[in-house]
């Protein structure tokens, strides 16, 4: 009951924001700045204690501690890289190589791994519903990831690059970032490889620039105002590739892990501030 209420609240707040952010559309170049200022102001206002994403963090914590799955256990014993049960600071140190799985995993891939190994949940059963639909309420998945990320708030990004698999993931991720293909010839770099660029009114982070990369990476998962839900990094990548006119990026796929390794390392030393607030 409480959980339902918490999940629904963000949607209502989003509606108010969209109304206020889009209401200022007079036809002049000044409007671009004022729209951006409006979003910045709202972001500031929410960061003073009202980010709808923060409510979801509490829900995520409840879900993390809840006994679930065929084995009826919680995720408390999940090893996110800093030892079983340690959530604090873990998100800032992923993607990383996990010996038990013998591969590099980003936070979401690792959480799914814990659900499978600890709780006995088959990823195939829940993967199709991890992301909420636009305008819907955030999913349990989004809540859990928001919680795990929030446990790294204020901690500097330090995705390791010591294992050969971590270095290879970074290298492949870099190549994928520049990989132009499809009918539009787009790569990630088309939109995210130069400073101060916009698509329509949306500012684009230059992910090759350390400051932009830090700002972008550390604020995901983020509360997406225009959609009224919290979105995760795996979602962000999938939706970028959709707009690149490429097929659907599979959840927890190797390419997603590689790209996230590249981005996390680029964001090195940026302090985690998730859940952030996105347009």
């Amino acid at each position, binding site marked *: 009951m409480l959980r339902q209420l918490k999940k629904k609240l963000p949607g209502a707040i989003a509606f108010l924001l969209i109304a206020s952010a889009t209401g200022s559309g007079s036809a002049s170049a000044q409007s671009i700045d004022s729209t951006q200022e409006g979003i910045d102001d709202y972001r500031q206002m929410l960061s003073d204690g009202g980010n709808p994403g923060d409510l979801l963090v509490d829900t995520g914590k409840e879900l993390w501690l809840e006994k679930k799955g065929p084995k009826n256990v919680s995720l408390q014993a999940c090893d996110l890289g800093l030892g079983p049960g340690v959530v604090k600071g873990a998100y800032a140190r992923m993607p990383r190589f996990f010996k038990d799985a013998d591969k590099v995993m980003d936070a979401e891939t690792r959480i799914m791994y814990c659900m*499978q190994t600890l709780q006995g949940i088959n990823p195939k059963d829940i993967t199709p519903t991890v992301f909420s639909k636009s305008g819907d309420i955030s999913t349990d998945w989004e809540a859990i990831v928001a919680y795990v990320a929030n446990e790294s708030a204020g901690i500097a990004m330090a995705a390791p690059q010591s294992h050969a698999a971590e270095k290879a993931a970074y290298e492949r991720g870099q*190549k994928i970032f520049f990989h132009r293909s499809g009918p539009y010839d787009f790569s990630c770099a088309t939109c995210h490889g130069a400073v101060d660029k916009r698509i329509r009114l949306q500012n684009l982070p230059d992910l090759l620039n350390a400051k932009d990369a830090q700002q972008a990476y550390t604020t995901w998962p983020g509360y997406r105002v225009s959609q009224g839900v919290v979105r995760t990094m795996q979602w962000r990548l999938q939706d970028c590739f959709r707009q690149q006119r490429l097929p659907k990026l599979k959840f927890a796929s190797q390419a997603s892990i590689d790209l996230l390794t590249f981005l996390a390392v680029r964001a090195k030393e940026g302090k985690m501030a998730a859940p952030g607030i996105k347009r």
Partner: protein
Amino acid sequence: MKKLHYAAMIACMTLTGASAFAQPLTGASDQDVMTVLKDSFAPVGEVSLDRLEQSPEQKACSDMAATGQAIPKDVMEKLLKQAMASVKPPTDKQFLGDWKVGEKIAQSGVGLQFSDKPGVVSGGNCYACHQMTKSEIAFGNIGPSLLHYGKNRGNSVQMLEYTWNKIYNSHAYTACSNMPRFGSAGILTEQQIKDVMALLFDPASPVNNE
């Protein structure tokens, strides 16, 4: 103990669906990247895995961008020449269509995404990257401003041809341009390109009269 290890292996394989790879994955060659990409995407309707494959031109442009090096002169000349060779002039030699239709094409960002209705008419999405009119304030800046395009440049045959070629295959003048090859890649039809041309050149179009 042995049993546990086996169980973990199976778990890992089913989790990622990446059973094609021997873990830990330590290769990062171009071929490794292609294998990873093909394994990591799922086709949706007409949007098939072929779209991950690169043409030699796409590969050359990607490699150059990744290394941050300038494109060697001989490669550059080859890319420009190939792009120009792909351009088809309008069959009836008429460059200009209807600017009102062109404006709609410039506004529309649909087409060729897996979320689009199959067979939907693609837009040009010009405003995503270019300023074009004064009244449309939601414009991007990846490309240069095209405000007063025709007014400033006139509509000589040379200018019409240049612009047609640029829209048809932007790489004909700028190797590895960010702009999609609207004609050569089959994104817009010949008639649609004429309509966008009219938006740029017609004195009555908001590009020129605002």
